[in-house]
């Protein structure tokens, strides 16, 4: 059992092992073929239910055991052997390798075990390998060439069928034999060598002869590779191609003419032989070299295969001619190598005939002529170039041979020498030289030189004098270059330059420069000259001594005149003045034209001014600085045309030196004068003074004729003064206008120069005829333009930069001076103002009367430069209460009162909408502002000012716009007078500024003090006034106060008492109400009990018992009444209003009360008027009153009831003739629970009073003891419902009681 168990265990393990395998496993009984076990893989392939089925059925789908069953290999004597086989499963299309073996199995038997491994992919590979082997074999077998292998010991291993076909041997005859035996004996050595190389891994192709079976030798081309097995070279694998036929042909040709071949090879030219097909059959080494290929590579190929297409084509053409026509041709051919270099060939092609005379080919010989061609080309180019250089050279060129004869000369040289080319050629070159130059070229000397430099190129430069054909001498510069030609002959090329003219000029130049340098030396002296006189003297010195002029003079331009100021050389002293405007005098012409004027013959010039000497020629040179002509230097001569260009130039130089010296001197003088002027200007006290000094300086220092002085005033440019005019001129130009060159200067802030005013539309003709140019320079300080200095001239373009500069200097002096004056003035004004301020303030403080103080303020403000000042006191609505004016006429004051703006307008003027007009605390409303024009002045913005003034809301100014700078007479300036708390108590307005200027923050600043001062004064005045008023009121009040206090105290006390009483009563009422209410229940039961007793006891007939019981009932009723009154009194009174009338009221009451017979009732009651009231309440009032009256008359009397309408009320009176009351009683009459009667009424009258008062009426009583009592009830026709008056005490009486009961 244990064994079996163990067995089962082992089997199980085995099964598990097999199940885990990738391969198919099964176990089958060899006898029954039943499958005993199959692993999962097997089941996967053949199905889960395989165990127990026949193996042949399952695996092969057979019905009987397989014929190939392998059992025989593993059972019987083969037990323990493993049988391997392969099996192709059709079902799966896969190959398996099966491993079969007998294994022992439970039941003590051997079973068949088979394991199948999937080898499909392996099988696939094997098949592919077999296929490739087959193909390879086919290839080898079918190859046209012999494929062989040789082992390393040189024995033939394999041969393919091609061997048999080519050689005629059977392969078997050679396989295994040494290969050398088949090789031609002559080639054996080479073959062995080649074989060795292959074995060494370095195979080379080789040609060897092989012995065929026929005995003849075949030429084979062998290509081999080492045969490698397991990484070692074990032999040779080779392919041999039969080239016997090719070789043969070659050989044949070779044999044709070995000598020819040798010859051909030796020729440096390219030689080739082509057959009729154009194939190159023989080429020599030159050919090989040309194409870079070996002969073996070329032979048999056509040109197309060797050369590029176009080259081949060129050859083919000539080849064709030769081959077709059988004639020789000579052509030039070329080739191009890969670098693009061309080579040229001179080719001769000759046809080759066979014995029959048929063309069989051609022989070509090509000579490389590239070098020659290039040289030829270069030479041609060189020659061309050389010729053109020589012919076109600016220099003369000569070629001199070894015999010093001119071999060649160009046109230029011919020109230089004055001979023709032909005349020159062949002559000894020395012929053309002047004597002194000839000596340089002695023949011996030249020969010696040539000897020294034999074979060398050498050159030298000479300056030589020549003799021209016409006998003139000339100077030439020669550069001679000597060289040697190929024949060793000397050639000298001379480059000749004609420097005759230059030399001459140089000579002249030297003289000129000498004079010039002299002059320049002089100029230095000129520059150091301290006076004009010195300059004149030095200038004349230079003219006379340095320049060597005989007659020299110096003239200066003075305004419109040219005046002679100095002269030399003339026999007598004379003076001369020439008008520049007249055409008289050569010098004048020089001034006018600004250029040197030379008159070679003065007799022919009508402008010449005759002097004492016999002058024939004259040269006048202007002294100029820039365009400006200062004067003239003039020289004269008694010779005709005595002055040359150099004279002119030198004189011009001198003139410019002199001019500079003069102008420098003048400038210095002007500057000095300007400085002096500036210093003087600094002391000027007024703008007028500045103007006067400046205009003078402009004329005197700067020499201007027409000078103007403009000042900027507001938006206008005003001419202050001018000089040079015959009559004073008034000129005001608007700055925003188009007119005035001066205006342009202001606007641009720069000098404006108009050389021709006729062309400038802005020019203002101020009445001076003939003004042609104008220069306006702004008077500027920083960016601010204060005015303009203006100069005018009758000449065109009369002013230059210097004028502008001087004017600018002047203008800056003026600017400083004016600014200083302005400052001084404003300082003085400020000082004055401050003084006014101080004095004013001091004065203001001493004035007690508010009105006068304000007036004083106005006056002080006036002193600050405002002609008209208005201060208005205003109330809290800003309406003016009082006006204080200064500087206004009576009419203006009247107008002001008429036109003064109401408070709300002022309020608006101080609103944020006006903030843009604010300057400090002031509001400045410019007339020019269109919005202000409409909203403040109340006139349309486009209405002309003259018209607008008549309609505007404000008071117009008397002043005209002309008197103002930038203030418009209608401008408005005002400020609120604010107390420190910000309350506006007054308004200050002022206008007509004395300086005509717009106010600025700075100018208004001092005035702001007054704003506050005035505000405080006004406020004080207001306060004082109200204080006074208050004081008076207080006085009266104080007198009344005592009385009032007393009265009030009394009232208060009464009120207090009433309140206390009311409170007390309220409490009592509440309490009473509660008590009363709770008394009801006992009363009820008493009443019930009494009733019961009365009923029961009535049968007894006892009178006294009955009487007692009646008494009980009566008192129960009375108690109940008291309780009801109490509750009534303590209850809130609510009126239920209906319409009724006095009669009804009284009748209803009388109906209730039993009137004893001893009382007479007098009823004087009307039906009218109708009244609204709570009838029930009225009934109770009158019941009460009537009862009281009845009670008051126990002994009888008269009850009188009256009613009468009185206004809106009805008055009832209820009078009795009873006992009356004392005063004490009357006082307490209305108090609840007070009664004079033993039984008392308790609440009666108190309730009456409440009810009456609830209707808004009154109840009073009049009485005296013994005189009866009268109650008067006054009720309104319609009750005034008094809410909350006595709105009273216990609202929810019952609930509170209920609460008490419960507890």
């Amino acid at each position, binding site marked *: 059992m244990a064994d079996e168990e163990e067995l089962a265990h082992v089997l199980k393990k085995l099964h598990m092992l097999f199940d885990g395998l990738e391969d198919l496993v099964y176990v089958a009984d060899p006898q029954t073929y039943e499958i005993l076990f199959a692993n999962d893989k097997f089941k996967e392939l053949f199905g889960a239910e395989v165990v127990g089925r026949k193996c042949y059925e399952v695996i092969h789908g057979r019905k009987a055991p397989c014929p190939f069953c392998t059992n025989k290999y593993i059972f019987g004597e083969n037990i323990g052997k493993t049988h391997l086989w392969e099996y192709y499963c059709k079902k799966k299309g896969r190959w398996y390798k099966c491993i079969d073996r007998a294994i022992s199995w439970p039941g003590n038997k051997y079973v068949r075990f088979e394991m199948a491994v999937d080898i499909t992919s392996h099988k696939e590979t094997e098949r592919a390998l077999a296929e490739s082997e087959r193909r390879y074999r086919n290839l080898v077998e079918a190859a046209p060439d012999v494929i062989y292998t040789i082992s390393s010991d040189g024995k033939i291993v394999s041969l393919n069928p091609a061997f048999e076909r080519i050689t005629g041997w059977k392969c078997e005859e050679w396989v295994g034999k040494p290969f050398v035996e088949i090789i031609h004996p002559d080639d054996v050595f080479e073959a062995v060598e080649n074989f060795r190389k292959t074995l060494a891994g370095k195979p080379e192709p080789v040609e060897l002869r092989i012995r065929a079976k026929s005995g003849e030798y075949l030429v084979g081309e062998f290509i081999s590779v080492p045969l490698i097995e397991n990484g070692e070279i074990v032999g040779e694998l080779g392919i041999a191609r039969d080239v016997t036929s090719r070789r043969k042909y070659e050989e044949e040709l070779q044999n044709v003419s070995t000598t020819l071949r040798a010859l051909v090879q030796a020729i440096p030219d390219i030689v080739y032989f082509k057959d009729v097909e154009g194939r190159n059959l023989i080429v020599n080494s030159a050919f090989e070299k040309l194409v870079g290929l070996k002969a073996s590579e070329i032979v048999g190929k056509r040109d197309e295969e060797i050369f590029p297409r176009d080259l081949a084509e060129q050859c083919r053409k000539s080849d064709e001619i030769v081959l077709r026509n059988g004639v020789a041709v000579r052509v030039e051919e070329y080739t191009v190598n890969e670098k693009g270099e061309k080579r040229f060939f001179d080719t001769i092609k000759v046809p080759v005939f066979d014995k029959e005379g048929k063309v069989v080919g051609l022989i070509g010989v090509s000579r490389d002529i590239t070098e020659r061609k290039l040289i030829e080309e270069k030479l041609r180019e060189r020659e061309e170039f050389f010729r053109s250089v020589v012919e076109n050279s600016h220099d003369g060129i000569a070629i001199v041979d070894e015999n010093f004869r001119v071999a060649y000369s160009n046109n230029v040289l011919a020109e230089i020498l004055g001979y023709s080319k032909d005349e020159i050629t062949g002559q000894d070159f020395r012929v053309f030289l002047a004597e002194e130059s000839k000596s340089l070229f002695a023949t011996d000397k030249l020969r010696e030189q040539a000897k020294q430099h034999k074979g060398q190129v050498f050159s030298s430069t000479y300056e030589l004098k020549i003799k021209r054909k016409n006998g003139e001498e000339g100077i030439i510069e020669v550069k001679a270059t000597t060289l040697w030609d190929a024949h060793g002959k000397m050639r000298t090329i001379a480059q000749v330059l004609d420097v005759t003219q230059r030399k001459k000029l140089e000579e002249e130049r030297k003289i000129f420069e000498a004079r010039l340098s002299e002059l320049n030396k002089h100029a230095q002296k000129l520059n150091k000259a301290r006076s004009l006189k010195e300059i004149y003297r030095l200038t004349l010195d230079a003219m006379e001594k340095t320049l060597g002029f005989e007659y020299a003079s110096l003239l200066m331009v003075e305004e419109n005149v040219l005046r002679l100021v100095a002269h030399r050389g003339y026999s007598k002293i004379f003076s001369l003045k020439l008008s520049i405007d007249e055409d008289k005098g050569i010098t004048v012409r020089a001034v006018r034209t600004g250029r040197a004027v030379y008159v070679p013959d003065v007799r022919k010039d009508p402008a010449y001014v005759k002097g004492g000497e016999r002058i024939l020629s004259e040269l006048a040179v202007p002294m100029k600085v820039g365009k400006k002509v200062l004067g003239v230097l003039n020289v004269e001569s008694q010779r005709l045309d005595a002055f040359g260009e150099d004279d002119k130039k030198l004189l011009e130089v001198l003139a410019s030196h002199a001019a500079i010296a003069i102008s420098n001197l003048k400038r210095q003088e002007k500057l000095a004068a300007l400085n002096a002027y500036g210093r003087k200007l600094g002391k000027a006290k007024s703008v007028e003074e500045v103007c006067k000094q400046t205009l003078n300086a402009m004329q005197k220092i700067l020499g201007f004729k027409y000078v103007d002085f403009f000042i900027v005033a507001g938006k206008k440019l005003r001419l202050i003064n001018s000089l040079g005019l015959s009559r004073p001129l008034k000129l005001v130009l608007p700055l925003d206008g188009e007119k005035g060159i001066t205006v342009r200067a202001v606007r641009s802030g720069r000098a404006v120069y108009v050389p021709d005013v006729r062309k400038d539309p802005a020019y203002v003709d101020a009445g001076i005829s003939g003004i042609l140019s104008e220069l306006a320079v702004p008077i500027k300080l920083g960016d601010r333009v204060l005015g303009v200095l203006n100069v005018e001239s009758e000449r065109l373009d009369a002013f230059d930069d210097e004028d502008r500069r001087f004017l600018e200097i002047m203008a800056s002096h003026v600017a400083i001076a004016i600014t200083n004056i302005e400052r001084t003035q404003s300082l003085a004004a400020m000082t004055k103002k401050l003084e006014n301020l101080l004095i004013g303030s001091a004065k203001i403080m001493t004035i007690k009367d508010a009105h006068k103080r304000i007036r004083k303020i106005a006056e002080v403000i006036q002193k600050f430069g405002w002609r008209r000042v208005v201060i208005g006191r205003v109330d809290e609505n800003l309406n003016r209460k009082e006006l204080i004016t200064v500087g206004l006429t009576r009419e203006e004051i009247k107008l002001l009162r008429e036109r003064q703006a109401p408070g709300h307008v002022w309020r608006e003027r101080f609103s944020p909408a006006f903030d843009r007009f604010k300057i400090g605390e002031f509001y400045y409303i410019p007339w020019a502002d269109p919005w202000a024009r409409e909203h403040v002045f109340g006139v349309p913005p486009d209405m002309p000012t003259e018209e607008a003034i008549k309609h505007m809301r404000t008071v117009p100014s008397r002043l005209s716009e002309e008197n103002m700078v930038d203030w418009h007479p209608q401008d408005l300036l005002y400020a609120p007078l604010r107390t420190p708390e910000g309350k506006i108590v007054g308004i200050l307005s002022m206008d007509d500024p004395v300086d005509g200027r717009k106010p600025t923050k700075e100018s208004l600043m001092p005035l702001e003090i007054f704003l506050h001062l005035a505000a405080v004064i006004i406020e004080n005045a207001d306060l004082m006034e109200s204080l006074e008023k208050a004081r008076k009121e207080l006085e009266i009040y104080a007198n009344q106060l005592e009385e009032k206090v007393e009265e009030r105290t009394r009232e208060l006390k009464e009120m207090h008492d009433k309140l206390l009483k009311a409170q007390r009563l309220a409490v009592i009422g509440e309490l009473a109400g509660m008590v009363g*209410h709770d008394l*009801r*229940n*006992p*009363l*009820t*039961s*008493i*009443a*019930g*009990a009494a*009733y*019961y007793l009365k*009923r029961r006891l009535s049968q007894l007939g006892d009178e006294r018992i009955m009487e007692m019981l009646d008494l009980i009932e009566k008192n*129960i009723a009375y108690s*109940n009444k008291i309780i*009801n009154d109490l*509750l009534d009194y303590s209850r809130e009174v609510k009126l239920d209003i209906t319409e009724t009338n006095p009669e009804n009221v009284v009748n209803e009451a009388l109906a209730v009360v039993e009137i004893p017979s001893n009382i007479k009732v007098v009823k004087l009651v009307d039906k009218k008027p109708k009244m609204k009231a709570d009838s029930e309440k009225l009934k109770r009032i009158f019941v009460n009153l009537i009862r009281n009256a009845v009670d008051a008359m126990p002994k009888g009397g008269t009850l009188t009831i009256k009613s009468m309408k009185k206004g809106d009320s009805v008055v009832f009176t209820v009078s009795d003739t009873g006992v009356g009351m004392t005063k004490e009683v009357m006082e307490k009459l209305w108090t609840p629970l007070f009664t004079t009667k033993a039984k008392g009424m308790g609440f009666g009258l108190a309730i009456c009073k409440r009810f009456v008062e609830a209707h808004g009426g009154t109840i009073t009583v009049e009485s005296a003891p013994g005189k009866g009592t009268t109650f008067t009830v006054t009720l309104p026709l319609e009750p005034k419902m008094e809410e909350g008056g006595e709105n009273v005490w216990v609202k929810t009486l*019952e609930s509170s009681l*209920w609460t008490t*009961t*419960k507890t």
Partner: protein
Amino acid sequence: MGENARILIVDDDENIRKVLTMILEDEGYKVDQAETAKQAIEKTRKNFYNLALIDIRLPDMEGIELLTKMKDTVPRMRKIIITGYPTLQNAIEAVNRGADAYILKPFDVNKVLATIKEQLRKQEEERRYSQEKVAEFIETRVRELEAEKITQKRP
């Protein structure tokens, strides 16, 4: 008929209950008492009363509220409110809540008796009226049916 009427007195004041009971019993009424509203509701549920005298203030409930409840449970029962001090508001409310009459404290016994008698009479009248109504209805219906029969025979 009055002699046999049953009256319920609802009042927390024992004295009043006692006195009233004595008087009413003397008058021949059958009298029952309830001290609280709760007791009153219980008693009216159990027993039949022709009339109830209800104090306006009860320890556990306002009399008027009790009225409201009883109006639904015992609508036929006559309800008289006894109040200390009638105000218009009180009266209106009492009637609205189903009181048939009210009497004042402290009451005049004669008036109380008269009121009770009056209410009981009204109750009797109502009862009779409703009985008559039923009879009248039956009679009318019978006549109508007869008339129908006639009309049916006619065609």
